[in-house]
């Protein structure tokens, strides 16, 4: 099958790759660009393990064609923070035991990052609703919610301190 030339910004870097028109964004990220943080859990948009940020929106990259991401700005868990600049969500998930097997975690944190930009000061109920597109089989969500609430507080406190 003939391939398309796809250019994207992924985690702040310009990337170019060839991909079939039918190829899914998750496969291009994982197989062609070796970005393996986002995972595949269901292939039907239910579990959210493949969640990435695309042009300022959370998308499930298992149901987005790579071709649709042509020209887009994509952020994955790898782009949120690393060993030298951990994102507060990454810290809070560890601090509040918001993960167990870790398979849902990259999608979960990537979604939480976008959610907190949509709603910087959420109630617990709003967190539960806003995160309902991401499934976790291990934690029962209680500590995920706790971690996101704690991250919101930290981020808001940092924002206030900066003003």
């Amino acid at each position, binding site marked *: 099958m003939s391939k398309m030339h796809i250019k994207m910004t992924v985690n702040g870097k310009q990337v170019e790759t060839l991909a079939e028109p039918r190829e899914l964004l998750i496969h291009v990220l994982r197989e062609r660009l070796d970005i393996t943080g986002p995972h595949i859990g269901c292939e039907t948009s239910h579990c959210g*393990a493949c969640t990435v940020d695309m042009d300022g929106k959370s998308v499930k990259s298992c149901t987005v064609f790579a071709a649709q991401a042509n020209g887009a700005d994509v952020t994955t868990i790898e782009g949120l923070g690393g060993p030298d600049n951990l994102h507060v969500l990454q810290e809070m998930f560890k601090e509040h035991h918001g993960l167990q097997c870790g398979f849902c975690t990259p999608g979960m944190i990537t979604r939480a990052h976008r959610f907190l930009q949509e709603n910087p000061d959420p109630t617990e109920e709003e967190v539960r609703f806003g995160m309902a597109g991401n499934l976790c*089989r291990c934690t029962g969500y209680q500590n995920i919610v706790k971690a996101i609430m704690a991250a919101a507080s930290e981020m808001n406190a940092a924002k206030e301190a900066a003003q």
Partner: protein
Amino acid sequence: MNEMSPTKSERAAALKGLGTSRKRVEDSRFTQGKGNYIDDIKMPGMLFGDFVRSPYAHARVKSINAERALEMPGVIAVLTAADLEPLSLHWMPTLAGDKQMVLADGKVLFQGQEVAFVVAEDRYIAADAIELVEVDYEELPVLIDPMKAEEDGAPILREDIADQKTGAHGARRHPNHIFTWEQGEKEATEAVLSGADVVAEETVYYHRTHPCPLETCGCVASMDKVNGKLTLYGTFQAPHVVRTVASLLSGIAEHNIRVISPDIGGGFGNKVGVYPGYVCSIVASIVTGVPVKWVEDRMDNLMATAFARDYWMTGKIAATKEGKITGLWCHTIADHGAFDACADPTKFPAGFMNICTGSYDIPTAYLAVDGIYTNKAPGGVAYRCSFRVTEAAYFIERMIEVLAIKLDMDAGELRKINFIKKDQFPYNSALGWEFDSGDYHTAWDKAMQAVDYDGLRKEQAERVEAFKTGETRKMMGIGLAHFTEIVGAGPMKNCDILGMGMFDSCEIRIHPTGSAIARLGTISQGQGHATTFAQILASEIGISADDITIEEGDTDTAPYGLGTYGSRSTPVAGAATAMAGRKIRAKAQMIAAYLLEVHDNDIEWDVDRFVVKGAEERFKTMKEVAYAAYNQEIPGVEPGLEAVSYYDPPNMTYPFGAYVCVMDIDVDTGEHEIRKFYALDDCGTRINPMIIEGQVHGGLTEALAIAMGQEIAYDDMGTHKTSTLMDFFIPTAWETPHYLTDFTETPSPHHPIGAKGVGESPNVGGVPAFSNAVNDAFRAFGVDHTHTNMPHDHWRIWKTAKDLGMHD
């Protein structure tokens, strides 16, 4: 001691040992997207395998034509049973002593069964090629209802063993019958039932479901023909067992096989079994000479690997008028699907279903389980429970509620009257187990107080009145459960899988500068072993948990062990860890005595050091001893500081707990809202309270899913109706309640540190608590209404209300 010296408690705290809510060492890589799961493994030249699967539940395979698929660019091979037969790999043994087709051998027995294995350059090509493999089927009559399996004219499913009158677990009375397993005293129990004041009867169906970890099963097989070595990466909950089985099946010597379990994205029992995908990947790698990857998609996972439950349990429970239980009778029809692939210890074809006397002192009991073949997927795994313990706990906790209705008693009071008393432990149950320790009354009273049980019952009575006067359309259910688990399989005298004894192991190396590495025969799938096993060791050998690396899952480096399932890691490998730590300490004591120039008996262990008795300013820390062990000549002592322990547990462990669920139910919509869930767990010594609580939250949420909506359903034709996450219920954060956790601590008397294991307790106790709440909500509305089956989805709850005339 000068003022700069840390106190004893400061030194103990610095170890981050037992009882510390230590943050997890695994989390840095997982939160940064740097986990290494099976689908992350990429090897040069790697091919991708995928299955042609049967669309029919029962059919003859008349022919398979792969020509068109093979013509497709990028397709390397298509394997069928005919290709595997010369290697004797077209069938494989199951963990339950049966055999299973690797690829369809003349017929298919369930929808989704593996028919052919396509090997291609990438997963897209493999998926395309599957469509081009032409299989000619001739449909056969389908057997879905296990109750009809032995009727005249029932289709014979397993023609390969139709004439065998004896199976792996004794006599077979029909070609569709697998085994009958009996425990306890039949006649004595029947005598008790016939003479009893009160007998309550019920048939309780624990429906078919699936562990459905977020990561599916998969493997990468890599045969290095130059060196004759096979490396098999995979989502294996028992990597060492996989190595031995792979060796026995393939004929490759065990030292030439290396099995590696990388990070595993949840298991819950799904990843214990040996699946056709593993066998086909190995063969494909041998044939092609390059690595071959196979990873299930979600439909493959839900349709073909590892269902759980599917037990039809008919019970009779006898009691005096005052509510003292005198006998329990249970007959179970166990639907095993097309092959008996349960992952139970060999001598227990129905797992530990004989823990079904629960937390109660029941003097006489009888259990019989009949295993049956049907046209459904094989499995029968322990989905977040020890072998069939969830079924057993659900059965007895429903029977208690039904008995309470019959006696017109409070179900909480009935439990209290019948609990095994603290001074009865160790307690020998009527069905053959020795419960190691327990204090049920203390736990129960604590739970009842915490939820204000009397207040809840009062409120419930008021609600019933309000409903009758038309003030509300919402009913209130109070779901009680007191469960006793049996985990930590198990003692080699009665526990083996395919002849392999169910011990576990730990090997420790102390480095010269006083840090350490320990390797175990288990494998974490989210339980946090790298965190908690270091804590056990820290408390034993006085080295901070932060200075101990825990490694599992590589059969070339880790000592042999039977893996992680059935809450066995802490009871068995955790015990091995403590015992290996004690061996380290014993050698260290000799070295310390030499360094301190005193006799071995004149020094004693103190947190992280050996001190001279009566002169605690004279000491050698473990760190100092470690350095000396490698760098100083100690007369009569070998250099180095290492130990290994293989631990054969003397008994199982018996965690328990008291759960209360308070639920509101809308009788017009069938919707429910969980207002409160209180979970008290007693798992013996608590290693890491943070991790225990996390396990309880997760297990309860899996219980919520099972009780309230999750099921593997088939239609009459054997068509799988719940093969995507659209149909197979997994609760989101929105549907999941907030849980209150609590604990009591009754150590196991036979475990080196008193720990019992906890990962599965919340599923075992949670399912009856949720289900009892639903059933309890309707208790006041039907004299004859004693039970509705799970899953309690909105429709079923609505239907119950309708049947009880509550919509009129």
